[in-house]
């Protein structure tokens, strides 16, 4: 990263600052602070950030050799264990960075949007840790379906503001948080949750998340003696993705694969404005959303579509402009994995490796299965030959988060399908009791 980054809002054609005038001074101030504190380590900002990531966040996270998956795919599979980060997902890297930056900037209040609640909980934790008042906007629908995360935010002392407009999901929560910010820019920092939004957010969030690939690259060299052949990460907005890719972008031998949510189908319903997926990189087109030009799921008029995925954290109609750019450049390969394959991968990783991944993360493992698994659904796989083309001999998969938050969804969605890999959950009916 160079300090020019602070003043260049674009990634090729993508990015920019498409925001209401009232926000422009705030994002200019932020771009300036990003340049000084993040890029130039003014006042030792980055040192403090890294130290807190270690002591409070639990970094470095391990790069774990996955024995069972490696045997199954006849390829060395390494897991970058962001699920072990405090809060249970990579989200804290960014949240801690931004809340600390807000503190350096003299802001007195933190706001953030959240969809699945992962970014909200990470922000609430970081704000509590750094003693900053914090308000989280969350759609009413999401509040109802992500209650444990609502509890966690409240318990960390954050206010949770329900957003009642529209469908009451992430899209609406982002818009609402921008509205709050437009009113309160002077003392408030808006902690955006992924590499989306107006410049400098996409670059800044990437830089905070880049610690993932900094560590993984070093660990891979140390453990395997060289660079991996490919790095695979799921992509919603794309922050864990760019975090996992950033330090490898310059290594042309390393394939970078961004796996999006294929949902139930790639076919959109234009009339209803609904995409039953969130495969923005593979199926979206260029447009402007939430402050940036990027790839979007939109109808032919340019109205944003409802996206859909079994995993709430991938359920977003946009994607980070940098990823859109890297896909256009051919540096990043977009892929998508549908709900069912993600659920299967969720169960496979849980049973074979003892790591329960977030449903978001499970998409990345669904990709492994597709390109290197067998056609049959037996657990003892006969690896196909061609897979080395796709994964190479060593693949790093970013385990962006843990699946505790998804248990209820997984059980419900699994029960709707006939997955031979799914465990028998009937004990929970035999022995009574309430909800999760």
């Amino acid at each position, binding site marked *: 990263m160079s300090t020019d980054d602070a003043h260049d809002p674009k990634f090729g054609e993508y990015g920019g600052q498409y925001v*209401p*005038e*009232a926000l422009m001074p*705030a994002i200019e101030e932020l771009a300036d602070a990003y340049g000084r504190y993040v890029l130039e380590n003014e006042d030792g900002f980055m040192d403090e950030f890294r130290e807190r990531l270690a002591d409070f966040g639990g970094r470095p996270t391990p790069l774990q050799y996955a024995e069972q998956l490696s045997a199954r795919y006849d390829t060395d599979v390494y897991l970058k264990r962001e699920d072990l980060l405090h809060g249970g997902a990579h989200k804290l890297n960014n949240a801690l960075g931004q809340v600390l930056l807000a503190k350096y900037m003299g802001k007195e209040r933190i706001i953030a949007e959240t969809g699945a609640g992962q970014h909200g909980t990470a922000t609430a934790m970081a704000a509590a840790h750094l003693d900053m008042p914090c308000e989280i906007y969350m759609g009413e629908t999401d509040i109802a379906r992500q209650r444990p995360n609502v509890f966690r935010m409240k318990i960390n002392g954050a206010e949770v503001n329900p957003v009642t*407009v529209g469908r009451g999901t992430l899209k609406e929560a982002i818009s609402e948080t921008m*509205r709050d910010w437009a009113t309160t820019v002077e003392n408030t920092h808006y902690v955006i949750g992924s590499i989306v939004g107006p410049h400098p957010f996409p670059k800044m969030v990437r830089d905070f998340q880049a610690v993932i690939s900094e560590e993984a690259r070093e660990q891979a060299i140390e453990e395997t003696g060289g660079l991996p052949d490919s790095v695979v990460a799921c992509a919603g907005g794309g922050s864990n993705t760019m975090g996992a890719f950033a330090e490898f972008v310059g290594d042309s031998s390393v394939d970078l694969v961004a796996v999006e949510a294929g949902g139930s189908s790639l076919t959109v319903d234009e009339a209803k404005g609904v995409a039953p997926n969130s495969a923005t990189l593979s199926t979206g087109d260029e447009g402007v959303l939430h402050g940036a030009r990027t790839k979007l799921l939109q109808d032919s008029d340019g*109205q944003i579509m409802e996206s859909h995925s079994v995993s709430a954290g991938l359920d977003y109609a946009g994607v980070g402009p940098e990823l859109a750019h890297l896909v256009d450049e051919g540096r990043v390969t977009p892929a998508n994995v549908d709900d069912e394959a993600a659920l299967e991968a969720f169960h496979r990783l849980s049973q074979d490796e003892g790591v329960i991944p977030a449903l978001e993360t499970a998409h990345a493992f669904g990709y492994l299965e597709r390109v290197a698994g067998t056609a049959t659904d037996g657990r003892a796989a006969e690896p196909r030959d061609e897979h080395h083309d796709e994964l190479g001999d060593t693949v790093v998969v970013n385990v962006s988060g843990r699946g505790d938050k998804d248990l209820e969804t997984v059980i419900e969605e699994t029960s709707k399908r006939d997955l031979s890999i799914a465990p028998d959950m009937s004990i929970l009916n035999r022995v009574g009791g309430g909800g999760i």
Partner: protein
Amino acid sequence: MGLERAFADEPAFVPYLAAGDPNYEDSLAYVEALAEGGADVIELGLPFSEPIAEGKTIQDAIVRSLESGMTPDRFFEFVEDLDVDVPLVCMTYYNLIYQYGSEEGPRPFVEKAADVGIEGFVVPDLPAEEAGPLREACDEFGLDLVFIVAPTTRGERLERMMEQVSGYVYVQARLGVTGARDDVDDATEDSLARLSDWDVPKAVGFGIKTGDHAEEIVASGADGVIVGSALVDIVAEGYERGDPTGEIADELEQLARELKQGALRGAQNRPQPERT
């Protein structure tokens, strides 16, 4: 010449409504009522699914309009169907402008808008930095591009905007999003002072509700008042109650008249306006 003419003789009253709220037919009647009530320019909202700059009132209007089937093409039809003799400005978000037509970029949208008689644009999520292509298209088809100046806009950014603005400048009376409020903010006077050497009319908006507000705003030096949420409220409340279209239209016309009168009163109290 362009929208500036609407501000030339007296303080302008610039109302906003979302086209198609709550449906196509009624909305035609409401917009026409504003013209009857004395509108000098009408800002017509083309609803976008993610209106990040709007308060709850206008968000709700946008939802009603979208649900009743509003699209860019319907919007252009709407403009054609309107029976008003007042300059029209299209207020929308950049993605709709950008996506329109087969060719990439804003040109097809602007061409079509010009074709149906739109005279200018307000695009809340398009800051001067990103406005190049739209400005060009507007120049090509002779349309105005209105920018919003916020209480926080200063220095370089103000200058960049001054270079590109035409028609009028939309002075945002306070931080935040659109929505009718009960007071008039000090920020307005400060903003007007910062813009005093601009030779484009200054219309103040955000939160203006009554004739007295309008009077106060104009008295402090504005060339016009922009009123949105207060009018949308009338549509929303009438719609909720199931009032007949005519009654709602009358109410709108009445408030429009009050606002226009307020603006006119304000002009009389103005500290020695230098007319050119």
